[in-house]
């Protein structure tokens, strides 16, 4: 009788571990599928879109090297485009997480600076290429980009 109770308890414990493994496996699977979808739909981009809260959206090409100052909410960040890749070179935020995000060159990859509310994301060239001039020639000094090319 006692033994039967013990085995019952054991099987119950096993069952609950199985549920845990199922949940963890499911979470891994969801993440894996999500990653696979992102990977399969990724394409090389030709330009980056720079968005800063309260500022105009600016698009800069990836095939030209350049150094751009971006005015954020709490300070200025510097974006560097080199060899077709963009990376945050300087940041006024305390954690520097955006600099740690490294280089980006595939569509929809992005660099985000939360403290300064700046989003830099890679876009496909075709549909937005014409937007570059219209966003930057509104005034002599673009709102977002102050530095210009090197």
């Amino acid at each position, binding site marked *: 009788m006692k033994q039967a109770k013990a085995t019952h308890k054991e099987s119950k414990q096993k069952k*609950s571990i199985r549920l*845990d493994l199922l949940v963890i496996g499911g979470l891994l699977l969801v993440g894996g599928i999500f990653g696979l979808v*992102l990977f399969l739909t990724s394409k090389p981009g030709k330009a980056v879109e720079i*968005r800063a809260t309260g500022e105009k959206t600016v698009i800069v090409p990836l095939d030209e090297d350049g150094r751009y100052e971006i005015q954020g909410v709490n300070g200025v960040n510097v974006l560097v485009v080199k060899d077709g890749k963009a990376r945050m070179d300087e940041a006024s935020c305390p954690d520097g997480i955006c600099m*740690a*995000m490294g280089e980006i060159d595939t569509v929809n990859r992005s660099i985000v600076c*939360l403290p300064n*509310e700046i989003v830099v*994301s890679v876009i496909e060239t075709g549909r937005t290429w014409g937007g570059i001039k219209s966003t930057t020639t509104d005034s002599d000094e673009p709102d977002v980009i102050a530095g210009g090319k090197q």
Partner: protein
Amino acid sequence: MRQNKTAKLATYGLLIALAMILSYVEAQIPAFFIVPGMKLGLTNIVVLFALYRIGYKSAFFVNLLRILLVSMLFGNGMSLAYSLAGGMLSTLVMMLLKRSGKLKIVTVSIVGGICHNVGQILVAIVILQTTALAWYLLVLWFSGLASGLVIGLIGGEMVKRLNKIPTDRSM
């Protein structure tokens, strides 16, 4: 009755102080993790402990007060929004999972870790008005899983070993 209240007050104070210290300690650790923005979530040890040893209410309020106090001391309005979204989402989900009683503490912590990161990304998507955070969400999905695992193992041991702190049930 009065003694109950005092003991409760002391326990809550202790847990909130501990959670705040762990928040601070974590902020001092430089980003040695490969993943930018990844955090270990040390304070979740306290939340797990409160959840499993004291009660749902204490887990909720300890984390809420910890977030408010830490933001007031070291943060700003923006960091408060991110912390609140992540912290409250993960705490609420963990409360529900604990209530279901079907999962081990480690699994509860893993789901909580992922929810924390998902909550923060959702706020970021709203504040920054962008959907360009998909890759980041992917990275933080797995980093939340990993840190939830580590914290869940530590928290589980704590819950097992620390039986002597007065709880609602023993008071």
